[in-house]
């Protein structure tokens, strides 16, 4: 389905995740963060950069991966994206929600 984000029509799924990463830019991320009541700071963006890197390398994202990222620890990740950090961060990053593994 389509959703209007930052004055642009963006393709999203039922849960609001972008289905086409090429439509993502920082403004979109900022808007999506606002919807989650998150104000993006430099630290937030560093976390998102790390997530994008993993996504581009097609490496699966996990809480364990964050621990090994060298960018931030899990405690900080939770404080940046309270509640469900992986779910919120991927939503803001414009990539699919991580599969909850099998």
């Amino acid at each position, binding site marked *: 389905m389509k959703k209007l984000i930052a004055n642009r029509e963006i393709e999203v799924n039922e849960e609001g995740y972008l289905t086409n990463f090429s439509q993502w830019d920082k403004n979109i991320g900022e808007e999506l963060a606002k919807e989650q009541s998150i104000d993006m700071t430099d630290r937030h963006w560093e976390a998102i950069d790390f997530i994008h890197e993993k996504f581009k390398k097609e490496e699966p994202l996990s809480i364990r991966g964050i621990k090994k990222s060298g960018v931030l620890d899990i405690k900080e990740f939770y404080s940046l994206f309270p509640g469900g950090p992986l779910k919120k961060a991927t939503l803001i990053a414009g990539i699919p929600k991580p599969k909850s593994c*099998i």
Partner: protein
Amino acid sequence: MKNLVILGAGTSGTMMANHLVSKLPKNDWKITIIDQYKTHYYQPGFLFLPFDIYTTKQVKKNGEKFIPKGVNYIQEKIDLIVTDENQVKLESGTILDYDILIVATGTKTAPDEIEGMNGPEWYKSVFDFYTYEGAKALRNKLREWKGGKLVVHITEMPIKCPVAPLEFAFLADSFFKHKGIRDKVDITFVTPLDGAFTKPKATKALHYLLEEKNIKEVTNFNIECVDYENNKIIDYADTEVEYDLLVTVPTNMGDALMERSGLGDDLNYIPTHKATLQSKAHENIFAIGDATNLPASKAGSVAHFEAEILTENILRYINGEPLKEEFDGHANCFIETGGGKALLIDFNYNHEPVEGTFPFPGVGPLSLLKESRTNHMGKMAFRWIYWNMLIKGIHIPFVSATMSEKGKHFEEVK
């Protein structure tokens, strides 16, 4: 003479030895299998051991008994795989050359990954049931436990047999009812996932079971530590869950051998081609079962399906033919629901667990996603099938390696 070496004589390794011994020409190929333990454990039985449903004798046997004649069996710890030299080093210093290597070293629990888990309360008020030692210690505990808060917990995904923790909670409900102390026991299921089941479809269809059995659910719980002094587990979002008895499934990891040999991922699993079972890094190394990083369930039934395809691919590799890209992630598993009933689910890489009947389309006898007594009998029969057919590599009638789409009601996974 060429060498085919199999690392690990668990479910997968033993199956491969049995398959290959009759297929590889004896004059050209020597098959060697290595395992650190003398005992072969029937791991699905670890679910039943804590409740005194199975005895210790029913879950362990001498491993060598299941290795066919003509296969060289070595009981020793494997120290290193030196891929540049095509060699395996054992703990004693023995060196084995290989032309083809099959890695079947499985996955194991790593309670040290979480602070406070493998601490002073380990096997006192904090238990696992994924190891023989843990299941047995828990059995002794449950024999005398008078009740309180029971927390059944999953540390992080993936874990082998992902439904086992839930089955544990169901069986605990039955067990305490039987003992007449269900009213004194509070059961909570704690998971890092969105819900109790790993596949959305199964979650939807099966949630009623939790309600029916009065099992509470805490979801999205990413454990940070076990606070064993105050009897609670704490997650990164500072949620706390109190327990009197904690039954946890620690982080599952492949053997440290993979890390030492530079062959594993973050969790020591081997990156493997999902349809052919060839390792991604070396064309003469194949991987099977829990040791792989495949997005399939880590289960004995999956290993059974993989073994048939891997056998075929080993033969093709030897003959220089292209490998068959056939493995579809097919898994089926019985889910014990307590009170003498069980469910059967069947799924693969692309299809969510489906409703229907198995293995005969539309007829059964085992029903998918519906609770029944026949399914429970199936789960119980699985132990016999395991020891007498599965690990010996005998084809199980009517059950095929890739998933049959007949008689099932599908919905494609996107």
